[in-house]
């Protein structure tokens, strides 16, 4: 089988796996593509010049959905940098007032860079996170400057450490505080990530001994062969090799735990997707199921067929990959 047409559904059939939704525990909302960074691997193609942004009406509608469906216990905010959305604080405060767990995909540097559009200081963020008891999930590709800056841009490592220090000072990452600071590792290139437990221990040891910094868990994520990372693979003539590696590392146990079985992803325009990656490919939830927040129907979404593609091998390789790290 050519890796270009790697058939994920055929692999599922061969393995006798039927991956249907098991819950909608998480509503993952992409508030827009505006970001203070432009990372090489970003599957969203986010950056400081992107203008796509969720409307205030769409945010209210997401809050209505949370109000109506208590089964959705987690609001997961992503972007771009979701903190740059003018409705971010309102969105968070309302969801927290409903008692929902709110996670923010926080790139660390956004605290220290001025807002790309308004120039306003974002240094209030750590204190706001603490007040609202947000769970902070932050990308840090490596515990060294060279690897981190190679992927996320010059100066990002130093700023990320400073931002972590501010979060630590408020109690984030400190045992017993209940304030969670989780980091995300993804490989700085066309290879699979290491075992989550092993690299987490190494990150903890290195960040503490070298910089006195703490965090709770490290989530390991495989780079998805779509958008900006796919372009890199194609330019470097590594696409087939990388896909071959993902297909060869297919793990049925990891497949059982794929995140699309327990979440719905919402685009900035209110369209619904099975995951953030399908969102970036504009593959909305399947035919027949309601596909926007305006006609959100929990029961019908639970009956939907999840849309799979060759990139799904990224979530099932090795120990698996999800927004919460390994799945096997």
């Amino acid at each position, binding site marked *: 089988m050519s890796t270009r047409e790697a058939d994920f559904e055929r692999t599922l059939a061969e393995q006798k796996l039927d991956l249907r939704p098991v819950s909608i525990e998480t509503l993952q909302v992409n508030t827009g593509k505006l970001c203070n960074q432009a990372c090489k691997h970003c599957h969203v193609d986010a950056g400081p010049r992107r203008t796509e942004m969720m409307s205030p009406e769409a945010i209210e509608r997401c809050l209505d959905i949370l109000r109506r469906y208590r089964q959705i216990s987690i609001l997961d905010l992503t972007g771009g940098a979701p903190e740059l959305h003018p409705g971010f604080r309102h969105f968070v405060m309302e969801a927290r007032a409903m008692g929902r767990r709110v996670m923010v995909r926080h790139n660390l540097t956004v605290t220290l860079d001025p807002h790309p559009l308004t120039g306003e200081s974002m240094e209030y963020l750590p204190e706001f996170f603490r007040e609202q008891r947000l769970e902070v999930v932050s990308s840090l590709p*490596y515990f*060294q400057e*060279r*690897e981190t800056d190679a992927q996320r841009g010059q100066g990002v490592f130093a700023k990320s450490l400073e931002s972590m220090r501010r979060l630590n000072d408020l109690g984030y990452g400190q045992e017993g505080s209940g304030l969670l600071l989780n980091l995300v590792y993804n*490989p700085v*290139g066309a*290879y*699979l*990530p*290491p*075992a989550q437990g*092993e*690299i987490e221990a*190494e990150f903890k040891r290195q960040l503490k001994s070298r910089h006195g910094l703490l965090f709770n868990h490290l989530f390991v994520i495989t780079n998805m062969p779509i958008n900006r990372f796919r372009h890199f693979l194609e330019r470097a003539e590594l696409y087939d090799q990388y896909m071959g590696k993902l297909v060869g590392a297919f793990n049925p146990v990891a497949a059982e735990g794929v995140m699309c079985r327990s979440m719905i992803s919402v685009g900035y325009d209110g369209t619904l997707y099975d995951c953030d990656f399908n969102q970036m490919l504009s593959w909305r939830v399947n035919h027949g199921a309601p596909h926007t927040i305006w006609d959100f129907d929990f029961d019908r979404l639970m009956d939907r067929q999840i849309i799979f593609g060759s990139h799904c091998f990224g979530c099932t390789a090795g120990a698996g990959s999800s927004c919460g790290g390994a799945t096997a």
Partner: protein
Amino acid sequence: MAPYYESKDLAKFPDMGKNQPHLWEKFLAWYTEATAVEGALTRREKSLVGLAVAHTVQCPYCIDAYTTQCLETGANLDQMTEAIHVASAVRGGASLVHGVQCRNIVEKLSM
């Protein structure tokens, strides 16, 4: 003339089991456990040892495989470069220490 080494040939390594499968299976079981399963050494440490040896035996297939394995076990370029220096230094030292033999012979032959 076509080059002797082609990176795509690494994927043909299992062909070495085609005519002597029992030997290949024994090799593979031993090789996998020795190089890729955590034991007294971690998988990262084993990967770095493998990378060092790959450079000593100057096998391009092994260098390719162990460079990737080092990255996939979380090693960084500082550690990988240091491992290659260890291997190269031992190899250089092995040549140099034989200078003792040279000196012994000179001493024996000299009046």
